[in-house]
């Protein structure tokens, strides 16, 4: 392990250091602001570092980690997102009647896990990252456990999440074991045509089962149907920052792993795997959108919509097998980025409006927001329209990519489902928008007692800017994504 290796591990190390420093700080003096500052600063530095390293870093560090432009790109995304969430959570937890500092600890640790995931091309690092992330998330989900007001749900959410995601981890592990039995290596490798004469017995079906077990586990983490059922409850029960983290960073990390693994292992060579993936995609799109249709709880709506969005992404993954170019990979990349931006925005608005004591998670709470607080409402509208895939927003470009990938691989059945799903989706996004347009209802607006922090507004502004700029002139980012996608 040379010094160069350490250098290219810089972002990871910086974040880890942040965690340590924060921990010591908590040990020395309990100061909410200080802890927050430290972690935010650390994450910020990590973001910058990763961004600066992107030029021409590309090396395998130990068998476990691959630091190439692709992983660095997502390191940037993850760190930035984590930083934004940290900023949101400051105002959110400000009035929590309990120790508030540890939340940042958990958040930073979870970020470490995510960074490891996006840069892993080995089973061990995958598991390491995944579990680090999950462990921390259990804590984050359950965090306001002791606080009297909102103490019922975090516990339930956390237990559900813990049990079920442990099952999923079990699935992944078992699948990995089978693959290992087939290939003899734990690094991501091609798993096709392995039936060597020397190894009696183990037929392709072993491989397929193994792949499906892994996919099932990952599908759970990505809350793809039919493994999505936990999502709404956990989203609803968890405090908003934790939900945001789970929805954005958690999903991103897992999806990058999925992408890498599918690409390297040629899993899609097996037509049955393609079938299963298509099945999962269709199911997720329909189920997600249908479930969200008449939902009144904002967090649950976003949970269900995330199910649908993961389904959209899966289409691109399937397409990547049929396509000649890298368009489908770019599609996945761009859409992930877009998804992070818009869900961060949506959850951000919610968490700015809420606090740990009272979360405004019923869409009725947002009635008349457009006239009470036009700027927030504008941001929220932007995010929702983006989620619905309307032009002028980054969400549209993402949809465009997915459609293009689909057309390129002529997956028309999936595209029709995509169109249907988006059509249904419009309904519930517009329901929220319409609520905000309604005249102000004093009873509701009175209940909004959150403390607004300047920082949160800045973050929202940044996100909104990204939303529009990437939606109107995405050419530069497209170029970047085109180059980095070559590394998959």
């Amino acid at each position, binding site marked *: 392990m040379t010094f160069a290796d350490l250098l290219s591990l810089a972002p990871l190390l910086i974040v880890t250091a942040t965690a340590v420093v924060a921990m010591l700080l908590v040990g020395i003096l309990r100061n909410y602001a200080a802890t927050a500052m430290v972690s935010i600063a650390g994450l910020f530095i990590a973001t910058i570092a990763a961004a600066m390293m992107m030029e021409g870093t590309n090396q395998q560090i130990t068998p476990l980690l691959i630091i190439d432009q692709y992983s660095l790109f997502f390191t940037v995304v993850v760190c930035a997102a984590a930083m934004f969430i940290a900023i949101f959570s400051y105002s959110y937890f400000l009035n929590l009647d309990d120790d508030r500092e540890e939340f940042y600890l958990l958040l930073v640790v979870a970020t470490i896990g995510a960074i490891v995931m996006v840069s892993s091309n080995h089973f061990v690092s995958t598991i390491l990252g995944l579990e680090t992330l999950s462990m921390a998330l259990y804590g984050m989900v359950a965090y306001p456990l002791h606080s009297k007001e909102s103490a019922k749900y975090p516990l339930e959410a956390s*237990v*559900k999440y813990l*049990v*079920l995601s442990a*099952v*999923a981890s079990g*699935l992944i592990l078992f699948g990995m074991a089978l693959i290992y039995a087939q290939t003899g290596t734990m690094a991501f490798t091609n798993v096709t045509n392995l039936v060597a004469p020397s190894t009696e017995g183990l037929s392709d*079906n072993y491989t*397929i*089962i193994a*792949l*499906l*077990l892994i*996919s*099932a586990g990952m599908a*759970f983490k990505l809350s793809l*149907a*039919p*493994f999505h*059922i*936990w999502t*709404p*409850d956990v989203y609803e029960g968890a405090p908003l920052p934790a939900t945001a983290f789970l929805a954005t960073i958690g999903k991103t990390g897992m999806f990058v792993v999925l992408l890498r693994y599918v690409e390297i292992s040629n899993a899609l060579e*097996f*037509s*049955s*795997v393609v*079938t*299963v993936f298509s*099945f*999962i995609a269709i199911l997720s799109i329909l*189920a997600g959108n*249908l*479930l969200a*249709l*008449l939902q009144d709880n904002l967090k649950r709506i976003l949970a269900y919509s995330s199910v649908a969005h993961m389904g959209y992404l899966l289409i691109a993954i399937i397409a990547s097998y049929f396509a000649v170019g890298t368009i489908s990979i770019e599609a996945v990349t761009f859409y992930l980025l877009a998804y992070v931006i818009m869900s961060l925005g949506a959850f951000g608005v919610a968490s700015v409006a809420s606090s740990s004591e009272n979360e405004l998670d019923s869409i009725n709470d947002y009635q008349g927001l457009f006239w009470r607080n036009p700027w927030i409402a504008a941001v929220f509208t932007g995010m929702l329209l983006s989620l619905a895939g309307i032009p002028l927003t980054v969400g549209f470009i993402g949809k465009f990519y997915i459609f293009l990938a689909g057309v390129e691989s002529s997956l028309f059945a999936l595209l029709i489902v995509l169109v249907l799903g988006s059509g*249904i989706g419009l309904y519930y996004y517009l329901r929220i928008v319409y609520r905000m347009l309604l005249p102000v209802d004093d009873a509701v607006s009175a209940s909004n007692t959150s403390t607004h922090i300047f920082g949160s507004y800045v973050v929202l502004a940044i996100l909104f800017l990204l939303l529009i700029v990437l939606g109107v002139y995405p050419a530069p980012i497209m170029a970047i994504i085109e180059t980095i996608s070559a590394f998959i």
Partner: protein
Amino acid sequence: MLDLIWLLPTFPLLGFLSLVLTGGSLPKKIVAVIGAGSIGLSFLVAAIIAAQFLANGEAHFIKEVWVWMSVGSFSPGFTFYLDGLSLVMMLVITGIGFLIHLYSAGFMLDDPSYSRFFSYMNLFVASMLMLVLADNLVLLYLGWEGVGLCSYLLIGFWYENPANGYAARKAFVTTRVGDTSMAVGLFLLFAQLGTLNIQDMLHAAEAQWAIGSGLAVAASLLLLGGAVGKSAQLPLQTWLPDAMAGPTPISALIHAATMVTAGVYLIARTHVLFELAPNVQLLVAWIGLVTLLMAGFTAMTQHDIKRILAYSTVSQIGYMFLGLGVGAYSASIFHLMTHAFFKALLFLAAGTVILSLHHEHDIFRMGGKRKQLPVAFASFLIGSLALAAFPGTSGFFSKDEILLAALEMEGPGLILWIGGVIGAFFTGIYSFRLVFVVFFGESKAHHEDKEVAGFSMAGPLILLMILSVFGGLITIPVQEVFNHGDVHEEHHVSAFMHGIMIAVPLLGIGVSYLFYMSRALSIENLMASSMAKSLHKFWFSGWGMDRLYQILFVNPFLFLARVNRADLVDRFYELLVQLTRIAHKMVAQTQTGQLRWYALSIAAGLIVIVSLGVLL
């Protein structure tokens, strides 16, 4: 001077605009001056133009004002075409029109919306002139629709009464049916002959189409559809009697003298087409015959003074169609002119009667009015004589020519002639029935009435009387328009036939004398039999045509409209929405909140995808 022909429609148009834009703010005097004056001016111009045109004796004169639209090969223009035919029409329209405007100036004097009335009238005259002066069918169609609109507006002039509105809509929609068929005819002609300029079109048709060729038949049939619509012939005649809801001058101008004869004009204008389709031309004759007979029967049963005249109009136009059908174009046009004279006279007179009797329409509630209403009486007497083709009157000459032409025609000619003669007989009956009942006998009317007839009303009546008597002596310069197949020159008919034709109307008059004057015969006996009653009822209802159409077209349309008010298609989308909601409810059931159930779902999902993967 001829170049100024575009002034003809311009004056009335200006009158219309000035009246509309001032929106009834002008004093009535000025309104009357503008309204009648504009028509007077264009009559003046018309007269001068006519004189000049006849003087330098060209066949026709064309003046293009501007190209209307030019798309590909299709380029109709605002182009006026003057020849004998349009000359006659334009003189009739402006002349009669002027008189009637004059009359209306007095007649409508106590109507609140005086200027609205005149604005519509002027617009009407303008479009009517467009119609007859157009050199292409599109411009003609413009006038055609324009007069239709004005007739709608004027029938519904007293809009407070929904009945009038209904009559107006009925008139417009019924004629619109005909217009549509005419429009389709235009499309066909253009698609086939590549032009809608009337003369070029006719020449092209002669050149390209064999006699009796399918296209010719189709084209002439479609045009005929337009003609019967406007001219209230079978099967579209039902609107005209109801159109009497409008003020009486309207009935005189639009529904007697000018607009309703537009169909005759159209056929005469495009007679070449009809000659290319002999069967259609024969059909024209038959339509004319049947219409005139049916209308004659009905006229005998009516007792609303205006409806009687309306049906008589229908029947007279039937004669014109008969003439067109047998190829006596100039005769028909001649009859058109004379009919314009005496029918306008009759209507205006009827107007005086009605006005004097405080809007009494039922002739059996009148009677013995010849003392009180001398002018009206004189007008009615002369008008009816002319209408009944009393020898020497204008009506005699024109109707005579038509019947002779029919007689001379080989094949069905004789039958047509007989029918026409029978019609003449009825004409005699109903026209004098009207005269006798209204003006003779003892006065049934409740009040001693003074005749309201200022100069502006009496003047036109007198002029029209003169025209009705001596109009027959005018010779109309339409020879070279119809130079082929015209039968204007000497007829070789036995004196016996002549005798019949002269005698029959007198016979009719006599019959009505016996019934309504001397009471030698009594209606009561005639009406005794139930058979007669029902027959009378049937005729009275205009042969039940209204009922028929109500059942055939109106009711089904209303029914369809009613059942589908909510738009089936919309319901379909509603259904989709409902299905989605149901689906949502079903899927939402899976979110039980039970951890073990969740775990189970994962296991199940696992099993599903693994079996999918392995089995496929």
